[in-house]
């Protein structure tokens, strides 16, 4: 994988240029489980299982099947180098991964090709996508804390989701605990992500998320906190949503 300096990125109201540049530098390291993204690789099995289980419940599939997502159209917003896209493509989903960073998309395409997976990667933003496209599953994992207008962003997510579909959002909660942990603890101590990838004031509370979703007639049907135990060096789900959390949203009608 080659690292490219970010020269251009799709301009869009919801993408903060500084944020994009920071992530692009990381793209080459995305797939190294012992590299800078090690924490993301560690947390990935948990996120994959959470999303898979929610989708299987919603679409009445067996989570033990190796093909449990077959026929479902899935959009991964802010897909990075494809850490979620590849597993879900293997489970049979038709995956579209979008990311505004060209080097992320380049790294993602390269890796998918070598893994013999066909995934539709697009260097674009949610806002620039064809407004008529529809998806069974919309993933916004660790992105809402990077966008400039959370409300507008979630409106777009809701619009692009089929009425029968499902949305999964994960983010960091804006609490004093997350301030201490995600900024001081997670970023510097746990090396959750390299220094400066998150700004605490942009974190989103579950209440804010709920409000934005309800405006779009979506309700939260499942939620889980994601906690790290430093001694076991393990992530697990928990009812504690003070720092990391994930929610599943579906139509209330």
């Amino acid at each position, binding site marked *: 994988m080659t690292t490219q300096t970010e020269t251009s990125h799709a301009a869009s109201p919801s993408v903060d240029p500084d944020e994009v540049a920071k992530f692009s530098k990381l793209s080459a390291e995305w797939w190294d*489980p*012992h590299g800078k993204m090690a924490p993301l*690789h*560690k947390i*990935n*099995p948990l996120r*994959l*299982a959470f999303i*898979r289980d929610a989708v299987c419940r919603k679409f009445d599939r067996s*989570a*033990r*099947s*190796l*093909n*449990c*997502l077959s026929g479902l159209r899935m959009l991964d917003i802010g897909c990075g180098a494809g850490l979620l896209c*590849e*597993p*879900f*493509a*293997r*489970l*049979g989903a*038709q995956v579209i991964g979008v990311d505004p960073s060209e080097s992320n998309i380049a790294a993602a395409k390269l890796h998918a090709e*070598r*893994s*013999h*997976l*066909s*995934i539709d990667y697009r260097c674009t933003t949610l806002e620039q996508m064809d407004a008529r496209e529809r998806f069974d599953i919309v993933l916004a994992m660790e992105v809402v804390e990077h966008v400039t207008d959370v409300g507008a962003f979630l409106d777009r997510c809701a619009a692009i989701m089929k009425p029968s579909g499902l949305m999964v959002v994960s983010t960091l909660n804006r609490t004093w605990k997350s301030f201490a942990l995600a900024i001081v603890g997670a970023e510097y101590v746990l090396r959750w992500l390299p220094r400066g990838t998150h700004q605490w004031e942009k974190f989103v509370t579950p209440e804010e998320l709920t409000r934005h979703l309800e405006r779009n007639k979506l309700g939260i049907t499942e939620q889980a906190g994601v906690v790290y135990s430093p001694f076991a060096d393990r992530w697990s789900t928990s009812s504690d949503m003070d720092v990391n959390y994930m929610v599943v949203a579906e139509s209330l009608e």
Partner: protein
Amino acid sequence: MNDTSADLTLYDVAVVGGGPVGLATAVALAQAEIRVALIASRKPYPDNRTTALLSGSVDFLQRIGVWERCEDKATALRTMRLVDDTRRLIRAPEVRFNSEEIGLDTFGYNIENRELLIALEARAAECPTLTRIDDDAEAIDVTELNVTIRTRQGGVVAARLVVGADGRQSICRDAAGIEVKRRELDQAAMTFNVTHARPHHNVSTEFHTPNGPCVFVPLPGNRSSVVWVASPAEAKRLMALSDEQLSDAAERAMHSILGRVSVGPGRHVFPLAIEQPRQFAKNRIVLAGEAAHVLPPIGAQGLNLGLRDASDIADLVIDTMTRGEDPGNPLALAQFDSRRRNDIASRTMAIDLANRSLLSDFLPMQAARATGLHLLNAIRPLRRIAMREGLAPTWRRLS
């Protein structure tokens, strides 16, 4: 699946080796619809070894649809009897463990490896996602995203994960770059089967002789399998005996408790060694069975441990793959390594201790642990003797 692979089939998992462990692993994976290539040339089973399958192994074989095919060939082990013939253990000349005492119907079942393999082969043949490649692996090349295996007859197989169940001289282990700690024991195990005049009543008897243990394990009818551990010179001498002389020797060793003994066809000698690889998984290759551990044939641990390898590998691969992940990814391999490490290390240590102390109390220990019961009362005096024998330092040295 969205695989776009063109040139050659990419399997999820390739299992190398068609011994009991390789076959069981392949079946357990294929049963979950994982695409498995089993690289194993068909050859007649080379020896007359039998295996005492402990309850956990039987449960696993049941889950993979194998037990029902060989159950009628297996003999229940209800009583384990240890007889001291060394005149060194003053306190306990004979100890008996009954399975009912710990709330079990049996400790396990003894079966000829040949019969177990027939059942495994038959089950493997009915798994639609299992492809049998009747050939030997010759060269193994690990790359970042998969492993390529070249076979003797020139075939090429690619897989994301390789299970090295290719026995003691594992080439998978070499390909993974895993070193082995090997300790030759100055002992050899001779195996043969006997017919005896009196019924065994499902009692397995271990005679502890100054040379090493001599174990009689029940087979169907008035038959038992014998594993006789002795010095290499003594094993050589026994091997050279005529059937009649060996029958006499065996009968003497067992103090004629089953009456007149006559040996059946086929005997084999296995030099004993303890082998421990430094890792159990590395570079998209996981080790199973004798590739992952060689133990003296005491307390029926070898294949039971191997079947636990198979069961653990299958569980972990299924978990990984039902999340859509690459089953050979480095984190999955690290998880496998740590999961097997404790089990294998503690069992190896225990067997080594038992071998040295001539006290194979580990079979009932194992059974007891399986039901959450304890045999501590029965075992405490044995343990005290073991300590008196000054063998505790052995344990420490190994840990």
